[in-house]
C-alpha cells in the first residue's frame, strides 16, 4: 500500500457502509442462505421460495438399516405337512423369487450426489449370493474386492455398471473385503435393498 493511498472515508460514510453491509448480510442470510443450507427459516421467505427443500436433502445422511427377513411358511409352522407347503408355493406371486431364502437383508440409503461402500468379509473361495434393487432409479456401481492386509490400494472389480438392480453369486478369489461402491449422481436420495446369503461377515457401510 506504499504506492497507492486508498481514500480514507469519512466516519459518516464508514458507519453507513458498515451498517449497510451488515444489513444486507443479515437479510441474505436469514432469507436465503440459512433456509437453504440448514432449514432455519425465521422470515418464512425461504419456505415461500421453496429453499427449505434443499436443506432437507442436505441433511440426509448415508444409512444402512437391517431389514427383518420375511419368515417362510416352513419356519413359522414347522409341523405343516407337504400339502400346505405346496399350497403356499403355489400362492406365491410369480415375480418373487422363491428359491433363495436370504440370510441378510439391508436397506441402504445413498444421499443425493454421494457415493458409499457396503462391504462383506469373505475367506478365499467363500461364496456370496446377492441380489439388490432400487425403486427403479439407476446408479453407478462397482462391485469389487480388496485383499486382506493389502496397503497398495489394489482392488479387483467384478462388475462395474450403471443400473437399478443386480444379482449373482461371487466366489471370493482371495480373502478380504468384498462389496459395492454405489454412487448416486442424481439430485434425490436413492434407497437400495440388498439381500445376501453365504458364508461371510458383514462389515457394513464403509
Amino acid at each position, binding site marked *: *500500500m506504499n*504506492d*497507492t493511498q*486508498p*481514500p*480514507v*472515508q*469519512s*466516519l459518516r*460514510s*464508514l458507519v453507513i*457502509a*458498515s451498517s*449497510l*453491509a*451488515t444489513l*444486507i*448480510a*443479515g437479510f*441474505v*442470510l436469514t432469507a436465503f*442462505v*440459512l433456509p437453504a*443450507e*440448514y432449514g*432455519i427459516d425465521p422470515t418464512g421467505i425461504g419456505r415461500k421460495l421453496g429453499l427449505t427443500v434443499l436443506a432437507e436433502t442436505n441433511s440426509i445422511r448415508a444409512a444402512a438399516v437391517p431389514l427383518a427377513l420375511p419368515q417362510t411358511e416352513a419356519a413359522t409352522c414347522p409341523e405343516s405337512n407337504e400339502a400346505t407347503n405346496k399350497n403356499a408355493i403355489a400362492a406365491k406371486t410369480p415375480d418373487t423369487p422363491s428359491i433363495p431364502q436370504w440370510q441378510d437383508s439391508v436397506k441402504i440409503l445413498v444421499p443425493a*450426489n*454421494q*457415493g458409499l461402500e457396503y462391504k462383506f468379509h469373505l475367506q478365499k473361495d467363500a461364496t456370496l449370493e446377492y441380489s439388490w434393487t432400487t425403486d427403479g432409479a439407476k446408479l453407478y456401481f462397482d462391485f469389487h474386492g480388496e485383499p486382506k492386509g493389502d*496397503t*497398495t*490400494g489394489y482392488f479387483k472389480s467384478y462388475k462395474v455398471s450403471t443400473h437399478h438392480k443386480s444379482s449373482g453369486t461371487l466366489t471370493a478369489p482371495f480373502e478380504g473385503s468384498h462389496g459395492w461402491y454405489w*454412487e448416486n449422481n442424481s439430485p434425490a436420495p436413492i434407497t437400495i435393498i440388498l439381500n445376501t446369503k453365504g458364508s461371510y461377515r458383514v462389515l457394513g457401510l464403509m
Partner: protein
Amino acid sequence: MTTRKLFLLISLPLLFFFLDQTAFAHGVDKNTERFLLANQGIAVGPFMYIGAKHMVTGYDHLLFLVGVIFFLFRTRDVLLYASLFTLGHSLTLMFGVLGNISVNPYLIDAIIGLSIVYKGFDNLGGFQRLLGLQPNTKIAVMVFGLFHGFGLATKLQDFSLPKTGLWKNLLAFNVGVELGQFLALTFILIALDFWRRHRSYYSFSTATNTLLMSSGLILFGYQLTGYLILG
C-alpha cells in the same frame, strides 16, 4: 493491444470453463473425493489440478484476493502480496496435514469470512479513521493466508491420505494452489484493469468494498451457524 486481445480470446473460454464448475467454499467435490479416497502413492498431476481447481473455484479465497489487490496498481505489488498469501497458505497446509493438526472447518471458514470483512473495511480506510493508524497490510495478508491454509489442511485430512509420498503429493497440491491463484489473479486483474480506466472505479470503490464486507459477513454467518448446529 493485439496481444491483449489475443490473451482475452484465449482466456475467456477458460474462464467460462471454471465458472461452469460448481464452486464450494473449501468443499472438495465428489469426484475429487473419490480420487482422494482411492489414491495410493504419488500422483503429482491430479494433486496439482485439485489444488488449482480449489483456488479458482473457492469463492472465499477469490473475494479475499479481490480485496487485497483492489488498491494495488503495480504488478510487482500484486505479485508480492499474492506470494505472501501463498506463503501463509502453504505453511499451514503442509504443517496441518503432516502434523495431523485439525481445526474445526466451520470455525476456520468463519474466520476466512471475517478476513474478507477485514479487508473490505481496510480498503475503506476504516482502521485509519477509527484507530488513526494503518495496520501493516503485508502482515495481515500473511496471517490470513495462514488461516486459509488451515481450512484446506482440515479438509484434506478428512480423507485418509496415504503416508507414502504424502509430502510430494502435498507439494504438488501446493504448486497447484499457486498456479490456480495466478490464474484467478489474472482474471481479477483484467477485470479491475478495465474498470480502473473509468472514473466509476473510484466512485464505486466504497460500494464495492461495502459489498465485499457484506459477502464476508454472509460467509461468516453461514459458517458460524454450521458450527453451532453441526460443528
